[in-house]
């Protein structure tokens, strides 16, 4: 089933949101939001640490632990993961999946080390990609780092394929051109990265409406990530899932029954005995 992944950008223990990775503003308590998203039917939750300081990294682990204590869905954590020990510390705090970005570009062997030591779910590669020429689709995408300030010149599609060869578990593909703009996912980026390997691709950056999500899933994404649309409380995760279903997308509708209720009920589907 396609996944809907709400994302919380976190700095120093608070949720923040910016446009094109810049201009951060405070948007609340991560635990309170995480619980609300999980209850609404989020299939996974992404916590992205965007703080620039060492102190912020310590706060990230505390945030992961606090969120983990409360929610029983997968937790994908990224931001500032430089070493195997960083990834391990996040796992110990309660992350289930760990994403690497800049450190993997600097040293691709890190992806293989993470996959071999901690498993493919800890070798999620986040790729921030920008169009080389916004006027020319054929110019392709290059990997950007440091909040988009550094253009690496590396071809994003080739990098995704290389990561697959290194044992990566998934590609988190964020469009730098679309991030925070609400102009919809960059479908060309989604298509090209999905074709680059057999790894699942999470589309990220630019989601405004449910039909943006439906298009990204149609373009080959296994999951869609969104932050902004949930932040102002305008629409809930449950609202978005209902609309996606109405659009014909087979997303999970979470069981609403409490554990004590399900125990007294017979199985929903008894097989017919011949």
């Amino acid at each position: 089933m396609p996944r809907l992944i709400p994302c919380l950008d976190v700095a120093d223990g608070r949720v923040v949101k910016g446009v094109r990775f810049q201009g951060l503003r405070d948007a609340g308590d991560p635990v309170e939001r995480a619980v609300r998203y999980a209850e609404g039917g989020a299939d996974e939750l992404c916590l992205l640490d965007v703080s620039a300081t060492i102190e912020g990294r310590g706060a990230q682990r505390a945030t992961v632990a606090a969120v983990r204590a409360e929610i029983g869905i997968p937790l994908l954590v990224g931001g500032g993961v430089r070493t195997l020990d960083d990834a391990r510390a996040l796992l110990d705090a309660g992350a289930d999946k760990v994403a690497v970005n800049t450190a993997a570009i600097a040293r691709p062997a890190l992806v293989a080390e993470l996959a071999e030591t901690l498993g493919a779910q800890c070798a999620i590669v986040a790729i921030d990609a920008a169009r080389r020429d916004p006027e020319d689709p054929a110019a392709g995408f290059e990997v950007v780092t440091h909040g988009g300030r550094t253009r690496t010149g590396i071809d994003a599609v080739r990098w995704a394929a290389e990561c697959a060869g290194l044992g990566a578990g998934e590609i988190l593909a964020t469009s730098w051109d679309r991030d925070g703009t609400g102009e919809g996912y960059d479908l060309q980026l989604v298509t090209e990265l999905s074709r680059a390997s057999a790894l699942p691709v999470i589309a990220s950056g630019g989601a405004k409406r449910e039909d943006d999500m439906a298009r990204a899933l149609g373009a080959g994404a296994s999951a869609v990530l969104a932050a902004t649309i949930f932040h102002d409380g305008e629409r809930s995760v449950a609202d978005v899932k209902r609309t996606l279903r109405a659009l014909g997308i087979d997303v999970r509708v979470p069981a609403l029954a409490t554990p004590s209720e399900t125990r007294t009920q017979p199985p929903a589907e008894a097989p017919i005995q011949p």
Partner: protein
Amino acid sequence: MIVRIVETGLANVASVRAALRRAGVTAASARCAEDVEQSDAVVVPGVGSFDSGARALIDARLAGALRERVDAGRPTLGICLGMQLFAERSDESTGRGEPGLGVLPVPVRRLRAERLPHFGWSEVASPADASVLRPGAAYFAHSYALTDVARLEEAGFRVAVATEGETFAAAVERDGFVACQFHPELSGAYGASLIERWLDAARASFEAAEVMPW
């Protein structure tokens, strides 16, 4: 009732521990055979590769104690790789590879799916006579699975199935032994209720043992 999580230093146990805590249980760690023998309920979590997981169980001398628990029908819950380790062997192994515990008389196969790993939620269909397993959507994170469902059923296991590219055993159950390819600790309300049912069954057998006069 003593609940322990097998910790060999490889698997990530934070999510399992948190899920048990939400179910009202503070779990200790099982690091040696005595811990496994002297627990009323044991969880075998698992993340990582089959060979490293199997090797870790052998090195910690846990393999025999785990096999005995399951053969005796004592409450034991395997999760993801923690399920696969109860099988005979795995396609994931390199070279000669490590043997599994052999409780589940089938090999672990690489899934024939379009995209791997299979990260995400799939519908689980469970047999009507299962006591812990139920139908519903569960969260999976794996590339390998036990695909010989018929052989598992012949061996006396109740088998719940899911499909990703092909049909595979999403979970098995026999007496107090439950093994899930999915992650109940990450499967929201569906997983939480499964963990509660398993704990309830474990508590019932613990209390039954308590009142026995001998």
